[in-house]
């Protein structure tokens, strides 16, 4: 049973299409990551689902009810949906006042929720904040209060708009854990708009790559490892995207002619294509090695970037390739700019997708 | 003034201004004295005299003899010139529940007081209660009756103090079907909107004399006493007196003011 079903939804602002023919189906209990660049319509879509804005056309069914229909009581739907806004704001009053708001409007006995509120504050790293004037909180604190304010109402569908944008890694981790638990224990259905790819991938069962329209929807694996469009590929941070012409050689082997070199892939696509190889799927060695890797090229190190974690190495083998390696192997190989290296990757590591060019 | 535009500020009581007489006098006067702009400031009697006491006007036109005499005695005004009179009317509901028709003013008030005390919902009297000329006269009449004003009149349920101008007081009396004392001018002006009738209209006690008092130039050197004198001269002239005597006949079918300049102050 789908909890949420969006059909042909379009939103136009001032004559400009901001959302274009969105179709989206979401099963109860799943978490959807809504990922896309800034201005792509994430917030707009969430606002429409939360009935804060009207679609220009299209239909939305929530739990089978057509919420775009005029006879629907918005409040009844909204009470089952919770949303954490991208720019979190607070009501006048204390943190506690803010959190109990949802209970108050639902006519719930607030006192019976007291321990729950305290537990929630605690789990958000905000123990002892209850009497603070909510307007004096820091950016990250405000964002967590906004989350608490929604969670206490136990929504069936939780809409999160960049819920950890203002949070440091430790707090982010806490919140992510909370969200994961929510999905697991309470089977809350969640849509999370984020530009944080790692986060989207970590928490989501499904990922939708949005840029006015939905470019790709699938499991994180599918989307990240097999982007279906150049836009998706670039956006999810796929590196080493090369344009070329593919010709099928054998049932499971294609040759792709790039500008200067040819590479092998196991894809079935032919004609103009994009090919990409993830930087960590490429191996470097100081000498030519005999291996099962079909793609092997000799070249020179053009650049070295140390960004704390992995070392990123730029290698020119006719085409430029980016390669990731651990600090250790890097130090062991004693690479410097100009070093001669061999570069290998398997045909199966080549991800081929359609070229819309 | 010698060709120089001058203004002549005259403080007057509202009831006099409301009759419209002053406008006619003004336009005729200004034809004669084109350099003088006559300006009327209508206010309560006390307020009009107050303007005079501060030197803010050049002349006052009022109808409250006692106050006027005090004004002159205190040195604010030079002399008092009477120029017209009429009568106050005791008006009341046509049914005349206190049965005052045919009485003189004093006994009419006595009857109203007695009937009011006996039957305060049927017989009422509305007083202006504003120290105006009319109000002053009303108190004088009450004091001539056998009733003690402070204990038997004021504060009694049948005695309503409106604290307002004549017109409003008439309206109030009309709404309450009560008696009241009104100057004849205002009563005639309002007559069309009222069910009240004028019941007692003659007698010495109801005599209403209007006078002119120039503000003392010795006290206030800025005062326009030259034009004040010419205004007095005009109002008391034959021409002025004719205008006063004729005023209102076409509109109300009767004379509103009786010219009196140059004559001794009437007593009945």
């Amino acid at each position, binding site marked *: 049973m789908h909890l949420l079903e969006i059909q042909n939804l379009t939103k136009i602002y001032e004559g400009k299409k901001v959302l274009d023919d969105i179709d989206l189906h979401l099963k109860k209990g799943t978490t959807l990551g809504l990922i896309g660049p800034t201005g792509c319509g994430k917030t707009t879509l969430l606002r429409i689902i939360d009935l804060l804005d009207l679609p220009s056309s299209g239909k939305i069914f929530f739990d089978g009810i057509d919420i775009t229909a005029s006879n629907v009581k918005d409040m009844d739907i909204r009470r089952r949906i919770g949303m954490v806004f991208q720019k979190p704001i607070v009501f006048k009053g204390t943190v506690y006042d803010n959190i109990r708001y949802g209970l108050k409007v639902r006519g719930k006995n607030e006192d019976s929720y007291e321990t729950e509120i305290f537990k929630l504050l605690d789990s958000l790293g905000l123990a002892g904040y209850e009497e603070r004037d909510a307007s004096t909180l820091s950016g990250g604190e405000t964002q967590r209060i906004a989350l608490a304010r929604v969670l206490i109402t136990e929504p069936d569908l939780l809409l999160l708009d960049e819920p950890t944008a203002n949070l440091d890694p430790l707090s982010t981790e806490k919140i992510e854990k909370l969200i994961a638990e929510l999905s697991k224990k309470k089977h809350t259905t969640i849509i999370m708009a984020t530009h944080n790819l790692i986060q989207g991938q970590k928490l989501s069962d499904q990922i939708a790559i949005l840029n006015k329209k939905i470019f790709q929807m699938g499991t994180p694996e599918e989307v990240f490892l097999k982007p279906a469009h150049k836009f998706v590929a670039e956006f999810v941070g796929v590196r080493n995207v090369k344009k070329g012409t593919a010709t099928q050689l054998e049932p499971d082997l294609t040759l792709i002619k790039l500008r200067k070199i040819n590479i092998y892939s196991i894809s079935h696509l032919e004609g103009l294509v994009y090919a990409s190889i993830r930087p960590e799927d490429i191996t470097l060695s100081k000498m030519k090695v005999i291996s099962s890797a079909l793609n092997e090229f000799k070249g020179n190190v053009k650049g070295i970037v140390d960004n704390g974690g992995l070392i990123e190495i730029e290698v020119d083998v006719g085409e430029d390739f980016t390669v990731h390696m651990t600090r250790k192997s890097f130090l062991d190989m004693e690479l410097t700019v100009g070093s001669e290296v061999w570069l290998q990757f398997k045909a199966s590591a080549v991800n081929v997708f359609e070229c819309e060019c | 003034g010698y060709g120089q535009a001058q203004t002549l500020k005259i403080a007057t009581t509202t009831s006099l201004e409301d009759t419209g007489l002053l406008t006619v006098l003004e336009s005729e006067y200004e034809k004669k004295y084109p350099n003088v702009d006559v300006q009327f400031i209508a206010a309560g009697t006390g307020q009009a005299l107050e303007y005079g006491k501060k030197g803010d006007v050049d002349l006052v036109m009022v109808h409250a003899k006692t106050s006027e005499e005090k004004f002159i005695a205190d040195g604010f005004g030079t002399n008092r010139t009477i120029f017209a009179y009429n009568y106050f009317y005791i008006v009341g509901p046509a049914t005349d529940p206190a049965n005052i028709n045919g009485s003189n003013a004093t006994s009419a008030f006595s009857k109203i007081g007695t009937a009011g005390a006996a039957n305060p919902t049927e017989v009422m009297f509305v007083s202006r*209660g504003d120290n105006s000329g009319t109000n002053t006269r009303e108190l004088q009449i009450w004091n001539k009756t056998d009733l003690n004003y402070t204990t038997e009149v004021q504060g009694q349920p049948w005695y*309503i103090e*409106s604290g307002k101008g004549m017109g409003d007081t008439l309206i109030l009396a009309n709404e309450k079907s009560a008696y009241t004392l009104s100057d004849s001018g205002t009563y005639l002006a309002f007559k069309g909107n009222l069910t009240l009738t004028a019941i007692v209209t003659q007698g010495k006690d109801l005599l209403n004399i209007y006078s002119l008092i120039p503000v003392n130039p010795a006290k206030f050197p800025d005062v326009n006493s030259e034009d004040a004198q010419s205004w007095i001269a005009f109002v008391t002239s034959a021409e002025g007196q004719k205008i006063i005597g004729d005023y209102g006949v076409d509109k109300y079918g009767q004379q509103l003011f009786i010219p009196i300049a140059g004559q001794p102050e009437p007593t009945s």
Partner: protein
Amino acid sequence: MSEIINAFFQAINLIVSLDPEVIEITLRTMFISLSSTFFAALIAIPLASLIHFNKFRGKRSVMNVIQTLYSLPTVLVGLLVFLLISKSGPLGNLSLLFTPGGMILGQTILVIPTVIGFSIIGLRGVKEEIKELALSLGASNLQTVTTIMGEAKYALLGAIILGFGRAISEVGVALMIGGNIRGYTRVITTTMSLETQKGNVELSIALGIILLSIALIVNLILNQVQER
């Protein structure tokens, strides 16, 4: 200028000596103007919410009309209400003319446009986001309105205090509808005009000072209430 100083002393004297007539008039003034403010707020604030929270054709015109009515002369209100409740008027049999009730009616009408106008300005001062936040958290329309009023309470209180100021300081309605009847409908402002007409400038100013003192006290109390 000495009159002003004298007036101050006279005001203090009137208050300290507990002049019974002054006390009576003062209490009546408070009763009437507080009542009209109360009724005006009761009508105006919901109306303001209706106007603010609904989108409709002609909303701008409504706003223009309301702002125009800030200029409603008290005499005009007095006249219109007079025609309405005078014996021969359509509400004549309620016998409201020359009663405190009639004055309350008139002042309420006088004050309503201002309270509506400034309540709308106050509500408009609350960010659209607060409305959306309330709705999103499941508030009904009414609850959302209440929440926004809470956020705007400072400005709403300002509107009410303004309404009170207008009611307590006006004289046109009080004179026309109340009739300034001594011991019954006489209030501070009508007494002030009366005394002014009589030439009693100092007494009149003294009464004005008493009126402002009442206003100050009412204000302090309303501000206190709002704090909580």
